[in-house]
């Protein structure tokens, strides 16, 4: 396992930095172009959630990005220092009454684009998202 750890500011620039860094690692593992797109999008959406909804652009709060490279998989962990949220309390973006809502689709896309997805309360607080994409399962 090879690990990359980054401590990022709560800015939209960090979204680009994280996406570029993870895609660099994913390319080294050998993911195909479409999988790279999906990985990049999952990282982008998770970073936006961390910066915008978690840390609320607070300059004193950071976003922690960890990338673990294995021959057959890429693991990405993104943690913010926000208040945390209840995954089950979020409106279902696929419900008829929510289809025309402007926001709320990020987690849906993340889950569609990675093979494993977990959200948990971070230590000491905030939200930690762990995503895994397998090379073997890549289409």
């Amino acid at each position, binding site marked *: 396992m090879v690990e990359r750890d980054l401590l990022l500011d709560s800015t*939209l620039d960090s*979204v680009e930095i994280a996406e570029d860094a993870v895609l660099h690692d994913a390319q080294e593992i050998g993911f195909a172009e479409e999988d790279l*797109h999906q990985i990049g*999008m999952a990282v*982008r*959406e998770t970073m*936006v959630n961390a910066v*915008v909804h978690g840390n609320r652009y607070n300059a004193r709060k950071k976003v922690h990005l960890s990338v673990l490279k294995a021959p057959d998989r890429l693991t990405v962990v993104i943690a913010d220092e926000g208040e945390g949220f209840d995954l089950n309390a979020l409106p279902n*973006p*696929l419900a008829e009454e929510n*289809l*025309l*809502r*402007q*926001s709320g*689709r*990020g987690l*849906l*896309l993340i889950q*569609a684009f990675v093979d494993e997805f977990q959200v948990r309360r971070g230590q000491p607080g905030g939200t930690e998202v762990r995503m895994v994409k397998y090379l073997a399962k890549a289409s």
Partner: protein
Amino acid sequence: MSVKLTIRQVGDVTVIDATGRITLGEGASTFRDAIRDLATKGDKKLLVNLSDVSYIDSSGIGEMVSGFTTVTNHGGQLKLLGLSKRVKDLLQITKLYTVFEVFEDEAAAIRSFT
């Protein structure tokens, strides 16, 4: 590169040719402002051409939905043209293919407006 929008008129249909990325920040806000301006100005038949859009994130999708609602509330119609496979996949995942009318061919899209 953020999104670049070029607006042209085909009969009474306003075609918005988008190029680049519609993502959180400048891209999404440029798209939002353009659609709101057109709707407020009274344009009622809007066709958004996404043929040259390389990337849309959930914020960009949100702005497309918001634009759809804005135009509809002004008594108009907003339709989509030239979706890449990736954008089509996004509409499938989010079930928004049930909301938007989507066309491959511009002439057919223009004719579809009532």
